[in-house]
C-alpha cells in the first residue's frame, strides 16, 4: 500500500483533515469534533469498501464490523486525541485479520494519527469485559462505523443485557472508585494555575463519568438526555454544554499548539491560547488572567454538576439510614442525609431561609441536597438589602464562619452556589481571579476560603503548624469572630485594581461591615487587620529584625497585644493558604522571631505608648520648624530618621535642635562637647557628641573623675549612625576662677584617652585611689547588681545599686568594658549618696549576654570594684 497515492482513503483523510484543522478555530468546538469524527467515519467506510480490503476478507464468510470507542465513539474527537476503534469479528478472529489491520490502521499511523485498536471476536470482547472492568467503559461509548451492522447490534445487545444487567453494581462501584482515585491524583482543575483539562476535578472526565453513570444506571443514550430525562434543568444543561464546549475548544487549541496530545495547560501555552481565543486586557487584568479565570469558572461549573449528579445518583447506590435529625426551621428538612427545603414556595415568603439552610448545614454537619443548591442558585437574587443586614441572617452567617469545620466546609458551598456573593457582593470581583506570581497557586476566592479554614484548624488535631505558640494563641483568642472576618476579607481589595490591595481592601471591609451594621469598634479592628495583613511577613523578610527599631516600628503601628496576636495568626494562615513557596520552616522562624520581639517591646511598653508616639512625632515637627533656612531644614531632616526612639522620647525639642547642631560641629573629629551652666543649681551640663567606640562611656567618666568633676547624673544614647550622645550633669570644678582652663585640661585628657595615649586607670590609681570602705549615710543595704536578659530582646540590662564614691561610674563602666560589653543606653542617677545605674549593653558583636555564666562573672567583676560597706 502506498500513502502517496492521492486516491488512497488515508490521503483523502489527510487532505480533508488539514483543511478542517486550518479553520477549526472558526467554529464551535463541538461542531469541529463532530466533523472531525465524521472524517474518520468516512475513512473507515472507504477502507472497507475498497477492493483491497475486500480481497483480504470476505465479509460474508467472515463478518466483521468497525466500531468507534471513547471520544471518537461519542463524536467528540479532539485534534490529537487517540482514535479508538474496535475491529469486531463474529466467531473467531481469522488469521488474515492481521492483514486487515495493516490495510486499515497502518496508513493512519503513517499520516501521524494515534490510533488505538483492538481486534476481537464477539465472545472475546464480552469475556474480557467480564473479567476487566476497564474494558467495560469503552463499550459504553461504542458506535457502529462500518462493516456488518447486525454483528455490532448483537454485541451491544449482549453487552447491555448480560454485562450491564448482571454486573451493574460492581461496574458502578469500580467507576466510583476510579473516579475518586483520579481526583486525588490530578487535583482540582477548577483552580489550578496549570489545570489538567481532562483528568482533573472539573475536567472532561467528570462529564464522561456522569455520562457513563447515566448510561448504566438511568439508561441515558447521549448527553442531551441529561436534560430530556430531567436530570439537569434546561438552564443547567445549557450552561453545562457551554462549559464543555469552552474546555473542548481550549483542548483543541492546546493540542494544535503542542502538535500532539496534551491535556495539562502549562504556563507557556496559556498566553498563546488566550491570545488565539481573543481575550483582551480589561480593568488591569491581563488577557491570560481573564482567560484562565473564565476556564476556571467553566471547570468549576462542571465540577459542581458532577458532584451534584454523583450525590443524587450515588453509583454505589447505598442509602445510609441515619437517624433523621430535625432542623430549627419547619421549612428546612433532613431527607436522605441531606438538607432540603420542604416546599420551595416558602422561600418567596421567607428568603432568609436561604441563609438559614447553610446555618443548619454547619450546625448539624449535614450537606445540602442538590435540589436545595439548585433552588439557592435560582432564588439567590432575593437576598438583598435590607435582608442581608437582618440580625438573624448575619448571626447565621457568623455561625457558618465560626463553625469549627475540619472536614465539612459550608463556606465553600456558599461560594459554589453563588450565595456568598449575594451576601457580600464585593466578593464577586475576586471569584476565579487569578494571581500570576511565584507564590499563589489558588485564585483569590479559593485562597481566602482556605485562609479561613486554616485558622479554624489551628489548635486542633489537624493543625497545619506544629508550633505551640500559634496554636495556643488561637485557642486563647477571644476575638475569633473578628479575625475570621478579616481572613475572609483580607484579599477583597484584589478585585479592585489599585496600588495597594490591602488599603483598598480595608476600605471595602468598612463598607461591607457597615452594611451589616457592625459596631464601629469591630469595624476598626477588622479593617486594621485587612490593611496590615502583609506587615509582619514583609517586615520579617525585608527588614533587619535584629534591630530594635524594626520591632518598635511594628509595635507602634500595631499598638496592642491583641492586635499583634491576631495579625500574627492571620499572617500564618494567609501564608499557609497561599502555596508551598510562601510558607516553610525558614519563613516561619523569621516570622516567629519578629512576633516575639514585637510582643516583648509591647510588654515593656514605654517606647510604644500612644503618648510616646505622639510626643515623638510632635517633637520631630517642632525640630524641623525650628530650622531657619531651607538648607538647614534639609540638614536636620537628614538626621531625624537616625535618632533613636529612646533619645527622642526623653529629649525636648529645643535640646534636639542643639544636639543636631553639636553633631554637625563634630565633623571628622572624635568628639565635641558643649558645656552649659544651670543657673538654678549651679551645676554644669556637658553634652558630648562622639563617634561611638567600646569603652567610650568609661573614658568620659574617668576623665571627669580625674579632673575632680563630680558626676551627678548621666544619660547616654546611641544614634543609628553610630554616634553616641552622652549627657552628664556634673558639679563644676572646685576652683571656678579658672573654670575654662580646667575644662580645657579635661578636654585634652579625654582626647588623649580616646587616642589611647592616656591610661585613665593608671592615672586615677595614682591620683585618687578608690576607697577601700565606704560608710552609707542612711540605709545599709549591700551592693546589688542585677542582670536582666528577659526584658529586652535586644539588650542585656545591667542594674547597679550602690553608694557614691569618687570614680564610682568609672569603676562600673570599666568593668563592663573589660567584660567585653558595649553600653548603648545608660541612666545614671545619684540621690544623696545612693547610686542607681542602669545600662543597656550588648557585646562588641552586638549580641545579648544570654548565658548565665557570663552574667554571674559580670556581677562578680563589678562587685570586685566596689568598696566594702562599713
Amino acid at each position, binding site marked *: 500500500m502506498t500513502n502517496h497515492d492521492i486516491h488512497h482513503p488515508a490521503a483523502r483523510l489527510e487532505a480533508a483533515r488539514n483543511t478542517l484543522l486550518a479553520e477549526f478555530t472558526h467554529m464551535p468546538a463541538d461542531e469541529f469534533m463532530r466533523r472531525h469524527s465524521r472524517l474518520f467515519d468516512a475513512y473507515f467506510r472507504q477502507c472497507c469498501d475498497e477492493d483491497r480490503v475486500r480481497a483480504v476478507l470476505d465479509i460474508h464468510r467472515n463478518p466483521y464490523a468497525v466500531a468507534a470507542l471513547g471520544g471518537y465513539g461519542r463524536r467528540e474527537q479532539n485534534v490529537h486525541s487517540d482514535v479508538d476503534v474496535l475491529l469486531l469479528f463474529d466467531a473467531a478472529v481469522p488469521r488474515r485479520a492481521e492483514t486487515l489491520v495493516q490495510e486499515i490502521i497502518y496508513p493512519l499511523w503513517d499520516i501521524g494519527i494515534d490510533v488505538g485498536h483492538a481486534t476481537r471476536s464477539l465472545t472475546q470482547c464480552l469475556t474480557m469485559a467480564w473479567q476487566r472492568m476497564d474494558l467495560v467503559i469503552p463499550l459504553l461509548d461504542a458506535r457502529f462505523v462500518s462493516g456488518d451492522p447486525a454483528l455490532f447490534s448483537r454485541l451491544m445487545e449482549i453487552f447491555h443485557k448480560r454485562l450491564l444487567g448482571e454486573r451493574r453494581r460492581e461496574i458502578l462501584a469500580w467507576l466510583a472508585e476510579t473516579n475518586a482515585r483520579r481526583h486525588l491524583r490530578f487535583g482540582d482543575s477548577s483552580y489550578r494555575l496549570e489545570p489538567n483539562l481532562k483528568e482533573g476535578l472539573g475536567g472532561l472526565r467528570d462529564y464522561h463519568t456522569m455520562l457513563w453513570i447515566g448510561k448504566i444506571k438511568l439508561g441515558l443514550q447521549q448527553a442531551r438526555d441529561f436534560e430530556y430525562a430531567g436530570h439537569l434543568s434546561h438552564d443547567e444543561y445549557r450552561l453545562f454544554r457551554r462549559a464543555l464546549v469552552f474546555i473542548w475548544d481550549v483542548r483543541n487549541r492546546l493540542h494544535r499548539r503542542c502538535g500532539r496530545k496534551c491535556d495539562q495547560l502549562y504556563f507557556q501555552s496559556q498566553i498563546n491560547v488566550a491570545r488565539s481565543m481573543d481575550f483582551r486586557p480589561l480593568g488591569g487584568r491581563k488577557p491570560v488572567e481573564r482567560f484562565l479565570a473564565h476556564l476556571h469558572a467553566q471547570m468549576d461549573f462542571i465540577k459542581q454538576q458532577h458532584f451534584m449528579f454523583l450525590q443524587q445518583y450515588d453509583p454505589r447506590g447505598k442509602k445510609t439510614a441515619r437517624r433523621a435529625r430535625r432542623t430549627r426551621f419547619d421549612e428546612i428538612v433532613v431527607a436522605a442525609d441531606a438538607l432540603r427545603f420542604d416546599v420551595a414556595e416558602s422561600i418567596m415568603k421567607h428568603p432568609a431561609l436561604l441563609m438559614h439552610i447553610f446555618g443548619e448545614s454547619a450546625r448539624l454537619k449535614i450537606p445540602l441536597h442538590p435540589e436545595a443548591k439548585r433552588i439557592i442558585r435560582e432564588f439567590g437574587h432575593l437576598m438583598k438589602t435590607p435582608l442581608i443586614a437582618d440580625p438573624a441572617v448575619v448571626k447565621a452567617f457568623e455561625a457558618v464562619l465560626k463553625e469549627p469545620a475540619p472536614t465539612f466546609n459550608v463556606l465553600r458551598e456558599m461560594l459554589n452556589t453563588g450565595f456568598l456573593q449575594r451576601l457580600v457582593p464585593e466578593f464577586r470581583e475576586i471569584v476565579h481571579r487569578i494571581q500570576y506570581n511565584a507564590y499563589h497557586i489558588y485564585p483569590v476566592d479559593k485562597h481566602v476560603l482556605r485562609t479561613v479554614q486554616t485558622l479554624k484548624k489551628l489548635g486542633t488535631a489537624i493543625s497545619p503548624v506544629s508550633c505551640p505558640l500559634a496554636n495556643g494563641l488561637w485557642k486563647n483568642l477571644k476575638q475569633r469572630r473578628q479575625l475570621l472576618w478579616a481572613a475572609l476579607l483580607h484579599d477583597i481589595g484584589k478585585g479592585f485594581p489599585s496600588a495597594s490591595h490591602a488599603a483598598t481592601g480595608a476600605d471595602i471591609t468598612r463598607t461591607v461591615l457597615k452594611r451589616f451594621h457592625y459596631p464601629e469598634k469591630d469595624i476598626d479592628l477588622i479593617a486594621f487587620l485587612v490593611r496590615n495583613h502583609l506587615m509582619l511577613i514583609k517586615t520579617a523578610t*525585608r527588614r533587619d529584625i535584629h534591630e530594635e527599631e524594626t520591632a518598635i516600628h511594628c509595635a507602634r503601628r500595631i499598638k496592642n497585644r491583641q492586635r499583634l496576636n491576631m495579625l500574627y495568626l492571620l499572617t500564618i494562615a494567609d501564608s499557609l493558604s497561599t502555596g508551598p513557596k510562601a510558607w516553610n520552616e*525558614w519563613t516561619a*522562624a523569621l516570622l516567629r522571631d519578629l512576633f*516575639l*520581639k514585637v510582643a*516583648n517591646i509591647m510588654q515593656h511598653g514605654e517606647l510604644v505608648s500612644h503618648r510616646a508616639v505622639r510626643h515623638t512625632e510632635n517633637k520631630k515637627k517642632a525640630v524641623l520648624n525650628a530650622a531657619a533656612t531651607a538648607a538647614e531644614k534639609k540638614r536636620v531632616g537628614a538626621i531625624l530618621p537616625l535618632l533613636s526612639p529612646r533619645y527622642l522620647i526623653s529629649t525636648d525639642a529645643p535640646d534636639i535642635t542643639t544636639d543636631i547642631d553639636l553633631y554637625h560641629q563634630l565633623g571628622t573629629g572624635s568628639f565635641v562637647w558643649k558645656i552649659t551652666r544651670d543657673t538654678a543649681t549651679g551645676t554644669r551640663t556637658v553634652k558630648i557628641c562622639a563617634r561611638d567606640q567600646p569603652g567610650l562611656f568609661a573614658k568620659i567618666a574617668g576623665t571627669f573623675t580625674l579632673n575632680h568633676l563630680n558626676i551627678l547624673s548621666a544619660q547616654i544614647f546611641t544614634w543609628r549612625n553610630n554616634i553616641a550622645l552622652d549627657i552628664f550633669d556634673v558639679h563644676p570644678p572646685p576652683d571656678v576662677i579658672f573654670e575654662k582652663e580646667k575644662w580645657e585640661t579635661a578636654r585634652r585628657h579625654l582626647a588623649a584617652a580616646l587616642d589611647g595615649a592616656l591610661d585613665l586607670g593608671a592615672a586615677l590609681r595614682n591620683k585618687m585611689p578608690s576607697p577601700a570602705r565606704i560608710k552609707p549615710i542612711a540605709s545599709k543595704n549591700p551592693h546589688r547588681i542585677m542582670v536582666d536578659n528577659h526584658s529586652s*530582646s535586644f539588650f542585656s540590662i545591667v542594674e547597679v545599686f550602690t553608694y557614691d564614691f569618687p570614680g564610682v561610674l568609672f569603676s562600673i563602666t570599666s568593668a563592663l568594658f573589660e567584660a567585653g560589653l558595649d553600653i548603648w543606653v545608660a541612666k545614671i542617677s545619684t540621690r544623696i549618696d545612693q547610686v542607681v545605674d542602669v545600662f543597656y549593653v550588648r557585646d562588641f*558583636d552586638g*549580641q545579648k549576654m544570654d548565658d548565665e555564666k557570663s552574667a554571674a562573672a559580670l556581677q562578680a567583676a563589678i562587685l570586685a570594684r566596689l568598696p566594702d560597706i562599713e
Partner: protein
Amino acid sequence: MKKIEAIIKPFKLDDVKEALTDIGIQGMTVSEVKGYGRQKGHKEIYRGAEYVVDFIPKIKIEIVVDTSRVEEVAAKICEAANTGKIGDGKIFVLSVDQAIRVRTGETGSDAI
C-alpha cells in the same frame, strides 16, 4: 572558574542581587538556609515560655564566575550585604572543575 558561596542576611538579598546585576552577573542560585556562626542563636521569653532560635534564617547565594571576576564579585557582595553588625555573613570561594550548559552542551566559561 570559581564558585562563590555567600551567606547573607535575608533582607539583604535584593540589595545584593541588584548590586550583582549592576556589574553584569547574569544568574545566581538562591536558597533559604539556617545556621549559626559567631552570631549565636538566642532565646525569647513569651508569657513564661522560652522560645529558642538556635539556627538563624539566612540566605545562601551561589554564583559561578570566571576566576578573573572573583574579587570584583566578592567585593560587591561584601559591600551590598554589609550592615556593620554581627551576622552579616560570609563568603566562600571554591574551585570549579567544569561547567556544562545542558541545552547546548557548551562547556567552560561559555556555559556560565
